[in-house]
């Protein structure tokens, strides 16, 4: 069963190469790739390349006679007032690769004038000088002006700037006017539009495209990317709600989910199956009246082509906002809502070749518990989960656990969020064994393993953290005597 992927195989070979076992097998399938890899060890670092260039430029500045210092002077030079000019100069060096041209520092340490150059464009800056009415964005409370910079590789620039402390306030994307562009806000309050020119366009062409974009009625917008083919889904969230039919309509209307099955469940209520871009979510509930039934809610991380639109649709359909759309540093735009049935949805669009990140599904169950480590331990012991990713931070732990082919997200709740008590269907190879392991790991039995009329063997447990798990495995096909 443990088939090693080619990514893994190649990585093992790379690891051997990096740790000095140099020999590249002649006939191995990866020989050509490893020859490339061997060459990569000797590549120059980007930082070095940029640093040397700056050093050379500085030498040139110094060597150029002062009478002949035609400054890089575009027609208009922005002059920034910042609180902390020295720190700002450092920041612009790290974030934008700025070169310092010079600074004038008073005995009290205040910088009254400085000049830097970013990709050939001059920027002037100084500390606050209230006596001249020269005030920083922090003092005034904002800047109604943005500065536009061009770079060769805006994606790399944004990565560098964010690492230096800038905030990405609009994600990088291709714009109709031929730029690939994003927006950064720096720690000093200034906003920078950063872009790379992808197409050189005349203004007439830009105008034409603009007209096309704004013409009523707007042409139906194409979806930016398609959902990917799904892997086997081993974890299925099961929502139990008071009004299942109305809720199914909500899911269809807001999330464009597709109903694939509507039938009567084992307890006599509705059993409905929904498909979200390739991921299955099941739900159930009473046919009428919800008195006395236990509801099961969950937190689900949903990927859609346009998170903003879905968020607003959800609010219009009666959901409550948890948080409005925001750009996350890990490359997705995300909003949060709580629906009328009590489920929490993170609605996200990933910025990449697909709106769903490579290793995620369209819908991903997110488990919120007070202690992520205990939960991870339980998932490993009970269901053989792997934990390929753990990120610990002062705000809490975020982890991803994989059971079979499906990823679960684990988030530690800190106070404000009430832990969920979801119901989850888990497909395993051997329901009896999983049931026994779950009990040994501390779960409580709620249903002993038994054959089900729909061709599966099923058992139920409740884990110490409140999640109800139904584990099921397909029944072996009966061998019928043949004549």
């Amino acid at each position, binding site marked *: 069963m443990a088939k090693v992927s080619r990514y893994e195989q190649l990585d093992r070979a790379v690891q051997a190469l990096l740790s000095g076992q140099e020999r590249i097998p002649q006939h191995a399938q990866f020989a050509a790739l490893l020859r*490339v890899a061997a060459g990569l060890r000797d*590549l120059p670092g980007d930082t070095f390349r940029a640093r040397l260039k700056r050093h050379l430029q500085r*030498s040139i500045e110094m060597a150029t006679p002062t009478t002949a210092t035609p400054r890089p002077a575009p027609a208009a030079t922005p002059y920034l007032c910042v609180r902390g000019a020295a720190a700002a100069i450092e920041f612009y060096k790290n974030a934008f690769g700025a070169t310092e041209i010079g600074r004038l520092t008073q005995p009290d340490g205040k910088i009254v004038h400085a000049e830097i150059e970013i990709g050939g464009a001059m920027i002037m800056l100084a500390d606050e000088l209230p006596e001249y009415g020269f005030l920083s964005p922090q003092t005034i409370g904002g800047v109604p002006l943005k500065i536009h910079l061009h770079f060769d590789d805006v994606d790399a620039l944004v990565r560098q700037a964010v690492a230096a402390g800038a905030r990405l306030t609009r994600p990088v994307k291709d714009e109709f006017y031929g730029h690939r562009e994003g927006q950064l806000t720096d720690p000093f309050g200034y906003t920078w539009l950063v872009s790379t020119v992808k197409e050189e366009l005349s203004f007439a062409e830009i105008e034409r495209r603009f007209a096309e974009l704004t013409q009523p009625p707007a042409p139906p917008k194409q979806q930016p990317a398609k959902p990917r083919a799904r892997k086997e889904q081993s974890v299925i969230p099961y929502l139990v709600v008071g009004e299942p039919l109305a809720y199914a309509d909500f899911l269809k209307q807001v999330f464009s989910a597709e109903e694939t099955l509507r039938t009567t469940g084992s307890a006599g209520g509705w059993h409905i199956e929904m498909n979200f871009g390739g991921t299955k979510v099941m739900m159930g509930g009473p046919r009428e009246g919800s008195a006395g039934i236990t509801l099961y809610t969950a937190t689900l991380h949903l990927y859609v082509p346009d998170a903003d639109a879905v968020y607003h649709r959800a609010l219009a359909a009666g959901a409550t906002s948890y948080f409005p759309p925001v750009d996350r540093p890990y490359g997705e735009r995300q909003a949060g809502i709580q629906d009328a049935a009590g489920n929490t949805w993170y609605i996200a669009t990933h910025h990449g070749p697909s709106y769903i990140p490579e*290793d995620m599904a369209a819908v991903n169950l997110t488990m919120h518990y007070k202690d992520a480590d205990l939960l991870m331990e339980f998932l490993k012991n009970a269901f053989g989960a792997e934990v390929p990713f753990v990120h610990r931070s002062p705000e809490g732990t975020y982890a991803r656990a994989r059971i079979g082919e499906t990823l679960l997200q684990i988030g530690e709740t800190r106070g404000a969020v009430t832990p969920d008590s979801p119901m989850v269907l888990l497909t395993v190879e051997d329901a009896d064994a999983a049931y026994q392991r779950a009990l040994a790991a501390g779960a409580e039995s709620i249903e002993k393993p038994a054959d089900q009329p729909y061709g599966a063997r099923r058992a139920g447990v409740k884990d110490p953290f409140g999640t109800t798990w139904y584990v099921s495995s397909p029944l072996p096909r009966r061998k019928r005597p043949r004549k």
Partner: protein
Amino acid sequence: MTAPGHDADERRLVEAAQRDLRRFADLYEAHFDRVYAYVMSRVRNRAAAEDVTSHVFHQALAALPRYEWRGVPFAAWLLRIASNAVNDHWQRSARERGNPAPEPVANPDTETIEHHAQLARMVRTLPADQRRVVEARFLEQKSIREIAQEMRRTEGAIKQLQFRALEALRAQMSGTHG
């Protein structure tokens, strides 16, 4: 791509830099990878390679006004400076160690140098995430786990990016070398 040569474009670049030193940046961009590849192949150590490369360009900058366009391609001129700088480096480190150390690596051939320079340029054209994985893995020698933490991706995703990057580079390299 520009061959190390003697074409009109290069002549224009050199002459522009001779008139106005600030244009030296263009020459630096055009030749950095070649010089670094040459130096690295001879000193076999990153810190030393950075040191020597830096020295080469500062020397070239100082000597640029004396460079004459008389049949010696600019790249060859630079590599001659580099060759001398590498020899100085070996002599200096031999002196520091107190014994004459023969240079352990033979002079590399032009094809190898161009191949490495080409590879460096190709890496810069990779998509940002693949490029980051290549730098972290091969230059900074980080583990898959560290890279995954840094980039907030799974280890599997990083291995996949590594695979894609190597495939893309291999495809491009074979495209340029027949």
